[in-house]
């Protein structure tokens, strides 16, 4: 920065600290809760420092078992389902969006804009709004209870198509021309040049879509009838679901933390690409 003003630096750090403290507090609390026993947490006010039950809690959360009262189905399996689902959704969304964006940008054909609009409108049509009929379709296609059913209906992506389109528009024309002179046909150009060039956008979308896929709740609940196809977010809701059940808050929080780890990992590791990919193409 232009000024050499120590006071401003101090203020900046103070603001950052405050921001971090507030933003991270709920997560810290979840962590603290997961390190105590269920009984400790229920006694208001709950302790604010980590307790000694950490290992116990996570073991119970991950592998089930325990004393019966606090036990649930193992989280490990659910994490796997979440992972596969999130990955398939992510890879699927990115692939079909790359193809569509390629078609829309590099070809001239009738109804081109109509196609683009049709894709674009789906941008904000969330599952909740069309869930019943969607379920019907999936069921008619016999895709219930499968990874296909969990993922394919969510695999269209306006966001990704749009982002790739924006990016493709910035790819210099000369590159296509060079490829054409080199004798590359459209698919060859797509595979050899366009896709490798889109790696930053792909990385950014990977983050967004992975999190989207990982955090799905309602759809998996409906589209699967077998508990070993449940993703972990359902696991959490399931633990705090109503009825007369005692909520084992420590396990709930442990599961919340576990459920958060993979996406957090993705976000933190890829944050640089994430921003770069979005900003480079978005503006």
């Amino acid at each position, binding site marked *: 920065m232009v000024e050499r003003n120590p006071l401003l630096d101090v203020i900046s750090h103070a603001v950052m600290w405050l921001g971090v403290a507030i933003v991270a507090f709920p997560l810290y609390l979840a962590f603290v809760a997961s390190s105590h026993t269920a009984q400790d947490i229920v006694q208001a006010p709950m302790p604010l420092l980590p307790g000694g039950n950490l290992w116990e809690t996570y073991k119970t959360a991950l592998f089930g078992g325990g004393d019966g009262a606090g036990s649930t189905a193992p989280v490990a399996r659910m994490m796997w389902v979440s992972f596969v689902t999130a990955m398939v959704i992510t890879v699927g969304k990115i692939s079909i969006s790359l193809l569509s964006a390629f078609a829309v940008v590099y070809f001239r054909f009738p109804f081109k804009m109509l196609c683009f609009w049709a894709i674009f409108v789906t941008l904000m049509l969330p599952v909740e709004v069309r869930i019943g009929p969607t379920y019907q379709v999936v069921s008619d296609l016999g895709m219930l209870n499968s990874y296909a059913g969990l993922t394919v209906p969510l695999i269209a992506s306006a966001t990704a198509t749009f982002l790739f389109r924006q990016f493709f528009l910035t790819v210099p024309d000369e590159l296509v021309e060079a490829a054409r002179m080199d004798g590359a046909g459209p698919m060859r150009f797509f595979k050899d040049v366009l896709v490798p*060039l889109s790696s930053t956008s792909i990385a950014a979308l990977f983050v967004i879509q992975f999190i989207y896929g990982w955090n799905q709740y309602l759809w998996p609940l409906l589209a699967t009838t077998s508990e070993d196809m449940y993703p972990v977010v359902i696991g959490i809701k399931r633990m705090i679901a109503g009825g007369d059940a005692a909520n084992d808050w420590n396990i709930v929080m442990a599961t919340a933390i576990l459920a958060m780890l993979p996406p957090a990992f993705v976000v933190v590791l890829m944050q640089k690409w994430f921003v770069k990919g979005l900003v480079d193409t978005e503006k």
Partner: protein
Amino acid sequence: MASITLRNIVKRYGIGPKANQVIHGVNAEIQDREFVVIVGPSGCGKSTLLRMVAGLEEVTGGEILIGDKVVNNLEPAKRDIAMVFQNYALYPHMSVFDNMAYGLKIAKVPKDEIKTRVDKAAKILELGHLLERKPRELSGGQRQRVAMGRAIVRQPQVFLFDEPLSNLDAKLRAQTRLEIQKLHRELGITSLFVTHDQIEAMTLAQRMIVMNAGNMEQFGTPEEVYHRPASTFVASFIGSPPMNLLERAPGVRPGTLLGIRPEHLDVTPEGGWDLEVDTVELLGAERLIYGRLNGEGLIVRVEEGSHAPAPGSHIHVTPRAGRVHAFDAASGKRIPDPTP
């Protein structure tokens, strides 16, 4: 190797009433092994012409022949040409080697041969130690050479260059110019080179096409173009500073313009034209004197060794004999020299 023939080439962008004609019937024969430069101001249609030869742009009217074959409807890849782009258009994610090898890979040239050919091109262009690098790790000049390398390995019949030097700084530009000349001498491939820089055109061309607003104004050797410009346009476009075109100089017939290059005006103690000096610029080896004659601006170029006149003072200049040109003021066309 092959010649290139342009027959009455017309290009329109768009269709119907909104169509915009940018090339108005260009005819030219480029000989086998010749190095021809197309030069002209921005927007005059140089790139369009080149891109039609490349097959990247459809030809609206007329015919393009490479060798004896009409190529109007041939895919770019099938025309056996290679092109060097202004911004090089290197594949940013491929190494230098892969950039050069890409076209060959697509053509299914065997691996060994690809390697041999790339290595050879790299050696010619002194790129040997850079083969593993990515384009972004190269300097401008190096990128430029990779772009040329990519064209060379293809061993095409024709090279096309679209302002390949304009992104280089002055020094590198001069140096690369020499390299391109050398290369052409060695490989002898028919080349079409587009530039808007007349120095570049002059130094590189065996023959040059001067274009203006979609028309070919002149097609000749640099000497011809410089010494016998076909029009006021060519006269003022070629040469820096440009030729002085005077309406009111002593002895100019009405309806004509007198052309005289700055270096063909000699400062004389007296006689000749009386000039009022505006500014003087030192360019290193020479000086430019900006003055006015009967209210018309005029530039005189003198050796830096000579005395620099003060702004506001008056000097006398004399046009050198045999260096004066005459143009028709209305059409801008050259008025033929009286046959000696």
